[in-house]
């Protein structure tokens, strides 16, 4: 009987998708076969279809006159502010590839080109300094501390400077790693480049690059080089440009994308955060343990301007840069496995961005990778292929505890062999193991909902870790979230609970709680609907009636 009702519930959920043509074939077959035997569901479907048909007679408003003109005028003015030349697309392909041409036309890549220019200059100067060109060395000999490295190139030598030298010094300052070449330099140089750049794009931009290059060559009073050396210079320049594409130039792009993501997040309602709470991974929340390499940070897709800057820092500075953000909080439920390698304490900025990735994956991306950039595959290797489930972690943790206890009591049975260590665990599992859900319930009882919530969230994402039903987990999570004063978030959990487990035993209690929350957030209609349903439940009828009167 109950199974039938559940079958009906499941199929009624499918009906919505069927009505709007979004039901997959398998579900459609199941629904069809159910409809053949269930008259109630057939009627339900018919009634829903009727409602949809009725909606066709709902009034539609025409586009108000003048709206198009106003919008188009705004669109044109926004376009003129963008100041990018329009090239007639030659077909769909052209528009599909338009993002590239847009980049190349200078709209977005302008700062990137400036960054590339910066790197070119740095690379050129570094090459000159390290290559032991006599004229340059002679100049640096006059200064108290010659600066062959990029780091020391920052403070300009107090030698009398010609006009060209001054510009060279200025360029040096602009690309000093200490001054965050990833973004600030980009801005500075973009501003400089903007002066020279015309909206015609590439040719002018390239000219600026060439001009700057030649000015830096003049500034350093480089003697005429043989052609082979000139080729080397070009090669150095190319390397610099490539670096900038991987690092410096990534920052404005990644920054732009993330800026948009941030704006979009802001624009999205409270439910966006609710959604995260309800179990979806935040967009772009991928672990960016590869951020030290700018190129990787690009592929990570979710890195912000800050991360890209860090990447640029690492790209230019010879020493590792301290992580700018706080390390991810250690997962409370994950016990430190005794066999696992000791994690390095400071997690990278990327790791802190993805707390869901767990402790181990974040840790691997610490200082080592920052000081010695490794290809992506290393980072992937560093990430454990499969996290042990919470259940397994707990088992292990408890086993270790038990071992310790035994050891401290002087029991001789504690041994170093792993096989021997596992035996008593299995024997004592039944008595020692505490389900994380029970732990969360305990915390909730002690009014420590803030501590219970992370545990419950983990259980929500990893149902195998607990023996408790998912419905219970959601319900408790909703209660704890509500207790923390986050009514909207809690309501999302309640909604999930109602939608996914219609036959949940605690449904009435949950509905009662949700009704209170709906009143709290001002959605009296939904609250009323819920309370009306509860009127027929003896345990809640009086309360519901009272509440309804109050509404």
């Amino acid at each position: 009987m109950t199974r039938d009702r559940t079958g009906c519930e499941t199929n009624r959920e499918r009906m919505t998708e069927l009505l709007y043509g979004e039901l997959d074939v398998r579900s459609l077959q199941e629904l069809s076969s159910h409809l053949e035997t269930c008259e109630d569901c057939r009627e339900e479907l018919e009634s829903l279809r009727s409602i949809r048909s009725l909606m066709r007679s709902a009034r539609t408003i025409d586009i108000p006159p003048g709206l198009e003109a106003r919008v188009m005028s705004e669109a044109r003015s926004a376009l003129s502010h963008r100041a990018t030349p329009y090239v007639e697309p030659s077909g769909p392909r052209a528009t599909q590839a338009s993002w590239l041409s847009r980049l190349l036309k200078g709209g977005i890549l302008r700062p990137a080109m400036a960054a590339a220019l910066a790197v070119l200059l740095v690379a050129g100067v570094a090459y000159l300094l390290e290559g032991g060109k006599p004229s340059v060395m002679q100049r640096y000999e006059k200064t108290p501390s010659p600066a062959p490295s990029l780091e020391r190139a920052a403070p300009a030598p107090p030698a009398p400077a010609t006009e060209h030298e001054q510009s060279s010094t200025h360029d040096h300052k602009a690309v000093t790693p200490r001054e965050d070449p990833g973004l600030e330099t980009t801005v500075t140089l973009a501003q400089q480049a903007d002066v020279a750049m015309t909206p015609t794009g590439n040719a002018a931009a390239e000219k600026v690059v060439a001009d700057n290059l030649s000015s830096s060559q003049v500034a350093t009073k480089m003697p005429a080089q043989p052609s082979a050396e000139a080729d080397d210079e070009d090669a150095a320049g190319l390397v610099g440009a490539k670096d900038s594409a991987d690092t410096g130039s990534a920052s404005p792009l990644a920054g732009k994308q993330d800026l948009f993501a941030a704006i979009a997040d802001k624009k999205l309602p409270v439910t966006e955060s609710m959604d995260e709470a309800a179990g979806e991974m935040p967009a772009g929340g991928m672990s960016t343990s590869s951020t030290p390499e700018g190129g990787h940070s690009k592929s990570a897709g979710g890195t912000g301007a800050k991360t890209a800057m860090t990447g640029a820092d690492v790209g230019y500075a010879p020493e590792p840069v301290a992580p700018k953000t706080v390390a991810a909080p250690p997962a409370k439920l994950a016990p430190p496995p005794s066999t696992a390698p000791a994690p390095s304490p400071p997690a990278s900025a990327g790791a802190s961005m993805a707390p869901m990735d767990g402790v181990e994956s974040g840790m691997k991306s610490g200082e080592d990778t920052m000081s010695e950039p490794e290809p992506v595959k290393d980072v992937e290797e560093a990430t454990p292929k499969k996290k042990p489930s919470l259940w397994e972690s707990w088992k292990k943790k408890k086993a270790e505890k038990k071992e310790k206890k035994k050891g401290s009591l002087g029991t001789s049975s504690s041994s170093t062999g792993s096989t021997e260590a596992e035996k008593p665990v299995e024997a004592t599992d039944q008595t020692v193991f505490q389900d994380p859900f029970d732990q969360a319930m305990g915390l909730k009882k002690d009014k420590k909902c803030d501590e219970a919530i992370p545990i419950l969230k983990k259980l929500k994402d990893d149902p195998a870790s607990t023996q408790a039903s998912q419905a219970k987990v959601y319900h408790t999570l909703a209660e704890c979230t509500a207790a923390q004063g986050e009514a909207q978030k809690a309501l999302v959990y309640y909604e999930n609970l109602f939608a996914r487990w219609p036959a949940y035993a605690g449904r009435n209690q949950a509905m009662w709680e949700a009704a209170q929350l709906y009143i709290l957030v001002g959605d009296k209609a939904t609250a009323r609907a819920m309370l009306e349903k509860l009127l027929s439940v003896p345990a809640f009828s009086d309360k519901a009636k009272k509440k309804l009167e109050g509404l």
Partner: protein
Amino acid sequence: MASSLADNDLFASYLEGNAESFRVLFRRHARGLVNFAYRMLRDESLAEEVAQEAFSRVVRSPPDLDRGTKFSTYLYSVARNLCIDELRKRKIRRHLSLDAQGPGEEGRTLMEKMPGNSPSTDAMAMDGELRERIEAAIAEIPESQREVFLLREFAELSFEEVARSVGCSENTAKSRMRYALERLRSLLGDLHPEDA
């Protein structure tokens, strides 16, 4: 030619400098957007403002559609947020009666303003009555369910797009839709499609 292009391609073309591409986008989405805003706010002039502002925001701060976002999803997200802001600001919520006068409408109620397609007065009256009931029923749906319903039913976004626009999971969007339909059925159950 341009009208056969996908929204995202048209928007990319617009960003390249082809303003006419945006006109195509406008014509594709303006009606849906205005109607969506109207049903959220129950005010025609506000709906128009919201639609205009939504388009303006899209051109002022163009979204990065290379990241998998659909133009329509983004546009409706903007419009939806504007509507919610407006609802919050005016504390309208959902109990606005059909008899309420919108700003600057000088005594005309929404009921009176409803145009009828049928030529006869009786038919007009019947149409008006039916529409009144439908509009009132839609207005009765709780806000979170109503926006999902409007985006799916009238703006014709997929559930996935609705979920993105509203900021919830796809399953939540579907269950909200179901609640909305159930609500409508309870309010309009005595009507039949033939009445329409």
